[in-house]
């Protein structure tokens, strides 16, 4: 399996905040891609995730994520 930028980004986010919940569609090669991550903020009545592209975690920024990604 290729260690893609999406996986690296996922790992980097988990390093910064282990309980963050999100979905990444495609790769994360830039801040623009990072801003497309769907952050899970809750569940609807059917148990399906409620998501937003607005990052709710102040401790997770593109700069910090990129720094962690470069270490991986």
């Amino acid at each position, binding site marked *: *399996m290729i260690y893609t930028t999406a*996986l690296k980004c996922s790992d980097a986010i988990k390093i910064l905040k282990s309980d963050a919940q999100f979905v990444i*569609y495609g790769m994360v090669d830039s801040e623009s891609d990072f801003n497309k991550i769907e952050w899970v903020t*809750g*569940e609807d009545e059917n*148990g399906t*995730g409620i998501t937003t592209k607005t990052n709710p975690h102040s401790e997770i920024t593109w700069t910090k994520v990129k720094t962690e990604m470069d270490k991986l």
Partner: protein
Amino acid sequence: MAFATIDVTKGITGTIPVANGGTGIASGTTGQFLKFTGSTTLASAADNGKIGQFVRAQQTTAVTVSTTTYTAINLSVNITPSAASSKIIIMANIKYSMGLATNTDRGFGVRCMRDTTNIGTSATLYDVYHKSTNSDFIDGGRVPFCLFDESANTTSQITYSFKVGAWNSNSVVLHADSNWSEIMCWELLA
């Protein structure tokens, strides 16, 4: 020894019962099949189980799921049943990869949706599961799912889709590395 013959096209009226080796019916309908009924007579049957249509869609763009809640994985297909009485068979072949350079167990569950209605969900988020036994594991494969939807009851367009939730929110990659996943639907006529 003399061998007598009987012309069965003459001298016989009515229908021959099943008990006597007949069909129990006077005639059949073009395109239909014969089947046994509860009374052991044979009847001219409708075209039960005929496939009305087939649709499919593939996905090759990776989706990384890192949440315990079920979220879309961009695997969906539209179908418009020709009759409200039709049943729908939904099948999926989902490519997944679970593997990072960390000693972490990983797994996921799958949910099938008819538009916004949940019609089938894995009992756990470790329906597909990989137990890590070392610090450098990679697991990947394909998971087949098949559901039978008897409650569509519409002739309007339906969107069937799959969602995934990751065990303990540990990342799982669907349609990884440009390997395709597929969803297929059959309309089964009544």
